[in-house]
């Protein structure tokens, strides 16, 4: 137990996760040959980052995730959380300190929302009053009303509400690390968008480290601090921040995987403040944008604006530059060139 108390023992802030040459083989009885689900995986996730593992189905991304909380054990290599090898820690204690959310949510149908969220606090023996307070806090944290949701059962919730409660349950004891396996995969696109935004906001406020599995490249680009693109056979084709992934795909496979519209995707991860803007002219130019607006939205607005130019203002409303089609085009040229 001492080992696990020391591991992930802090109350706040994210953990560091490191994969060191991790492999997982499954022996197949058909021909006796071991089949690699994950091959020689090495990557580091810094505290407070969202590391998205993305790739086609069967590429080993979920296996990689489950090796972190030892639902699956690696054949070779090491996984370190804050420098401690997970294989040296009691798996039960380890899992209680790591939040875990899966696509089907896995809310327990026989327990109320409050009881579901209280699962891990109960397992680790929190006093009742503390659990009660924490449950209400969490329901509110994921944007629902504690008074009206506390005593409901999962079957009485919508898909989106279940996902929120799933996230709340995983965060019950403020884990410094969350593992999320396609957590927003089972809800409709509009709800997914909203859940993603709320989750990003929550994650930034709490400074959690997150490992996030998805097969949706758009979700990866939107949420990831860094994105690991897996290819068939359990190897990583590229591990980099989303912008770099879009601008400089390391291989043809990555280029194909991110899609031919990656220039547009790249615009969506850039803010106007990141562009080299033209100097402000005396006359106000076209529509006014906040410097935080993403470039894709700005482009959409410019296409409809009469003079194809707009004024960018900072948070206090002071103009800091002018954005034009040319400004945007020059920002994505490297991508356009590599598309040839």
């Amino acid at each position, binding site marked *: 137990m001492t080992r696990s108390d020391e591991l992930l023992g802090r109350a706040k802030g994210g953990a560091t996760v490191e994969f060191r040459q991790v492999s997982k083989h499954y022996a197949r009885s058909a021909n006796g040959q071991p089949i690699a689900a994950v091959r020689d995986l090495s990557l580091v996730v810094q505290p407070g980052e969202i590391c998205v593992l993305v790739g086609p189905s069967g590429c080993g991304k979920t296996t990689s995730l489950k090796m972190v*909380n030892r*639902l699956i054990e690696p054949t070779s290599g090491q996984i370190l959380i804050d420098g401690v090898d997970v294989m040296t820690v009691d*798996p*039960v*204690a*380890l*899992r*209680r*300190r790591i939040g*875990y959310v*899966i696509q*089907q*949510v*896995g*809310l*327990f*149908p*026989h*327990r*109320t929302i409050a009881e579901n969220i209280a*699962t*891990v606090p109960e*397992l680790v023996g929190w006093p009742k009053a503390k659990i009660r307070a924490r449950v209400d806090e969490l329901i509110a944290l994921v944007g629902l009303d504690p008074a009206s949701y506390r005593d409901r*059962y*999962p*079957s009485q919730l919508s898909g989106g509400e279940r996902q929120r409660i799933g996230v709340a*349950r*995983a965060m019950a004891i403020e884990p410094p690390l969350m*593992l999320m396996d396609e957590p927003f995969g089972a809800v409709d696109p509009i709800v997914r968008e909203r859940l993603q935004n709320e989750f990003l906001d929550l994650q930034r406020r709490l400074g959690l480290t997150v490992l996030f599995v998805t097969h949706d490249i758009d979700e990866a680009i939107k949420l990831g601090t860094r994105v690991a693109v897996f290819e068939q056979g359990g190897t990583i084709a590229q591990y980099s921040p989303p912008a770099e992934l879009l601008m400089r795909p390391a291989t043809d496979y990555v280029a194909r995987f991110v899609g031919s519209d990656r220039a547009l995707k790249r615009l969506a991860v850039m803010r106007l403040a990141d562009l080299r803007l033209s100097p402000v002219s005396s006359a106000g130019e076209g529509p006014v944008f906040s410097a935080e607006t993403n470039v894709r939205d700005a482009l959409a607005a410019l296409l409809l604006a009469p003079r194809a130019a707009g004024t960018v203002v900072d948070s206090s409303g002071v103009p800091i530059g002018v954005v034009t089609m040319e400004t945007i085009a020059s920002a994505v040229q490297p991508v356009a060139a590599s598309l040839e």
Partner: protein
Amino acid sequence: MTLLGAVWAWLTNSVHWQGSDGIPTRIAEHLWISGVSVFIALVVALPLGLLIGHTNRGALVTVSIMNVGRALPSLAFLAFALPASFALNLGLGFWPTVIALVPLAIPLMLVNTYAAIRGVDPDLVEAARGMGMRELEVLGKVEVPVALPLIIAGIRNAAVTVVATATLGALVAGGGLGRYIVDGLARQDYARLLAGAILVALLSITTEVAFAVIERLVVSPGLRLDRERLALPDAGGAR
């Protein structure tokens, strides 16, 4: 006097409500034999069903054997129980009946318990493990509560079958309500026969209802959406 009148007269005759052949004694005997048999079967079948359901080890063999057991005629159980009871020097009456009823009840409980645990959504089990539950906690806090409606359905089916078959215990000099039927047939005393039949039928239906009430009390309301599917009695098991 019509037959129904005779039955009514028999049932309301105060002589039939006292003594060692009185209705209260016979009902008590019937419930005692059934209760002991269900309890013994429960002690054997429940842990075994939970174990093979949770681990899925030895499931194929166990379930195959149990399915054969489910197909056996109830009178055949009694047929084998009689020599078995004599061989063990347990005599007539109570023990041969129990020896017949226990193996009759075990397969009904075991197969249902196993199937109920196997039927729990694997995502729930994974979520439970992923949150750091130990194997016993996964079983006790997630699998059993979620599988409870089906587990109870199995126990109910076994209990009703046992109450029904305990009637046959009268053939091996057991007590219980079957006494009235067997004696009524032997003496061509149709009032006794019909009264016995009505009492046994009522006891069976009461058992069924009692378990439905138990199920309602112990099963989480969160699972009630599944109720309709589970309310159907399990096919099989001759009574």
